C-alpha cells in the first residue's frame, strides 16, 4: 500500500512538473528578446555583435540546450527552492512567498475549521431527529448557498462590517481581521457538508455492525463514536478534499477583497505586472498543496474506513 502510494505520488508530481514547465515555456515572447529589446534596436552594437551577445545570454540561461535538458535544469532549480527573483521587487521569490504563506495558511485553516465546526453542529441538530424536515431545509440551503458567489459575499460582507462594526478595510493579517474573511469563505460550504455528514451518520447507524455492537452490549457512546461516526467521516473526507479546492480558489478573491496579505493576493498583483517568476512559484506551491490534500484524503479514508482500501484494491 505504501509503495504503491509513493510511486503514484511521484508520478503525479512529475506529471504536474512537466505541465507547469510546459505552461511557463509556452509564455509568449523570447526571454532574451524581452530582456534585450527588439533586435537592431541597439545604437552602439553592430548587428553581428548584437546577435552574438544575444547568443551568449541565451547560452547563459541554458536556452540553447534541448528542451529535455532545460526541463531537468529547471526541475533541479525548483526542487532546490530557487524560483529566481521577482521582476518587480528584485527580491527572492521564495522568501516573498514564504513571507505571505502563513497569512494564507492561517486563513485557509480558520475557514476550514469554521466550516467543519458549523457543519458538525448543524448535522448534530439534524441527526437528533431523523426523517424531520431538516433534510429538506438543508437541501434547499445547500442549493441556495452554492449559488451565492464568493465575490458577492466578500464585497457585501466587507461593506457591511466596515459600516456597522468598524471593520478595518486594510491592514495586517491580525486575528481581529481574520474572522470576517474566514466566515465568508466557510459559510457557503456549511449546508452541503452538514447534509453529507447527516446522511452518512444515519446510513452508518443503520449498518449491521452498529447493531451488532449494540447487541454485544457496547456502550451507546462507543457505538456512536467508533461504529457510526468513524466510518461516516469517510464521505466527509472526500467532500472536505473537494471543498479545500474550492476554498483555495475562493481564497484568491477573498484575499483581494479584504486586502489580506496572502499568496493569492500576491499572485493577482504579479499578474498585473507580468511578474513571471512569481506566477511560476505560485502555481508550483498551489499544485503541491493540491497534491498533498489529494493524498491526505486518500490516506485519511483508508484509516477511517478500512473497507475503502479493500474496495480500491479490488477494482484497481
Amino acid at each position, binding site marked *: 500500500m505504501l509503495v504503491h502510494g509513493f510511486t503514484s505520488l511521484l508520478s503525479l508530481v512529475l506529471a504536474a512538473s512537466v505541465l507547469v514547465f510546459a505552461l511557463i515555456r509556452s509564455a509568449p515572447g523570447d526571454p532574451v528578446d524581452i530582456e534585450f529589446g527588439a533586435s537592431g534596436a541597439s545604437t552602439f552594437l553592430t548587428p553581428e555583435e548584437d546577435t552574438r551577445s544575444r547568443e551568449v545570454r541565451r547560452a547563459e540561461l541554458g536556452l540553447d540546450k534541448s528542451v529535455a535538458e532545460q526541463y531537468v535544469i529547471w526541475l533541479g532549480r525548483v526542487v532546490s527552492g530557487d524560483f529566481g527573483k521577482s521582476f518587480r521587487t528584485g527580491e527572492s521569490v521564495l522568501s516573498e512567498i514564504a513571507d505571505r504563506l502563513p497569512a494564507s495558511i492561517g486563513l485557509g485553516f480558520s475557514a476550514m475549521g469554521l466550516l467543519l465546526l458549523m457543519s458538525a453542529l448543524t448535522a448534530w441538530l439534524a441527526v437528533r431527529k431523523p426523517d424531520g424536515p431538516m433534510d429538506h431545509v438543508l437541501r434547499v440551503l445547500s442549493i441556495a448557498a452554492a449559488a451565492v458567489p464568493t465575490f458577492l459575499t466578500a464585497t457585501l460582507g466587507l*461593506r457591511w462590517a466596515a459600516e456597522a462594526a468598524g471593520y478595518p478595510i486594510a491592514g495586517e493579517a491580525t486575528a481581529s481581521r481574520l474572522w470576517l474573511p474566514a466566515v465568508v469563505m466557510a459559510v457557503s460550504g456549511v449546508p452541503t457538508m452538514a447534509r453529507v455528514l447527516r446522511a452518512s451518520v444515519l446510513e452508518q447507524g443503520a449498518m449491521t455492525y452498529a447493531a451488532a455492537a449494540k447487541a454485544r452490549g457496547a456502550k451507546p457512546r462507543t457505538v456512536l463514536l467508533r461504529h457510526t461516526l468513524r466510518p461516516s467521516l469517510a464521505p466527509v473526507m472526500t467532500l472536505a478534499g473537494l471543498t479545500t479546492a474550492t476554498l483555495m480558489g475562493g481564497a484568491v478573491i477573498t484575499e483581494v477583497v479584504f486586502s489580506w496579505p496572502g499568496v493569492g493576493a500576491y499572485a493577482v498583483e504579479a499578474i498585473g505586472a507580468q511578474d513571471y517568476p512569481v506566477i511560476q512559484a505560485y502555481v508550483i506551491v498551489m499544485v503541491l498543496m493540491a497534491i498533498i490534500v489529494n493524498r491526505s484524503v486518500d490516506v485519511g479514508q483508508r484509516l477511517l474506513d478500512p473497507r475503502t482500501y479493500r474496495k480500491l484494491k479490488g477494482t484497481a
Partner: protein
Amino acid sequence: MSAFSEGKGTVLYMTGVVITGGMVVLACAAPWIAPYDPALQLVGKPLSAPSAEHLLGTDKFGRDVLSRVLHGGRLTLLFTALALLGIVAAGTVLGALAAAAGRSVDRLATNIIDLLVAFPAVIVALAFAGIYGPSLGVVLTGVMLVMWAPFARLSRSLVRQALASRSAQTALALGANRGLLLRREAWPRLRGPILVLAAVEAGQLITVVAGLSFLGLGAQPPSPEWGAMLQEGRAALWSAPHLVLGPGFAVLVTVLGLTCLGEGLRDRLEVAG
C-alpha cells in the same frame, strides 16, 4: 410507484426550468426589452442609485445598469454554453476511452483525473492569465482545462460498469463491435448523470469566470459582461454598491436556476449521489 415518488423533484426541476429559461429569454430578448442602449453614456446622472427611471441605477459613465446586465447576459450565457459543450464532450469521450483502454492507461488516467477534480480551476485560470495576459478567452481556456475532469470521472466509472454488465459481456462474447457496445450499453446509462452534472457544473463555470473577471483577469471593460461589470463596480463599492449588486445578483440567480435544474433532474432520473 407512489404518486409522491413520481412527483419527486418536480418542484425543484420546474423552479430550475423557470429560472434558467427566464434568464435565457431575458438575455435573448435584451435588444428589445432593454430600456436603454447599453453602451450609450450619460443616459442618466453618473453613479445614480436605483430609481424608477433606472431600475438598477447608472454606472460612472451614466450608462443604464439594467440594460447592461440584460445585454451582458447574452455574452455570459453564450460563452458558458460553448465552454460547457466543450468540456462535456471532451470529458465524456476521454472518460469512456480510459474505461475501454487497458489497465495501465486507465490507472494513469484515473490518477490525473482525480488530481484535476480536486484542483481549483480558479488557480489554473489565474496562471493562464499570468502567462498569456488577462482576457476572457485565456481564462476560459484555463478553466476548461480543469473542468472536463468531473465529466471524465463520471463517464469512466459508468462506462466501466456498463462494459462489465452481463448483457455487455454476452454481446462481447458473441462478437459485438466495441463502438456499437458503447452506444447501445454505455450511452443510455451515461446520458442522465452527465446531464445532471452539466447543469451543476455550468453554474460553477459561471461563478468561476465571473470571479476571475471580477479580479480583472477575464472579460475586460467596456464590454457589458457580468464579470467585467463587477470589476468596474468593485472600484465604486463604497460610493455606488448597486454596481456590484446588479451583475452580482444576475450571476446568483442564473447559478441558482442551474443548480435547481441539476438537482431536480437528479431526483427525476433517480441518479445516485
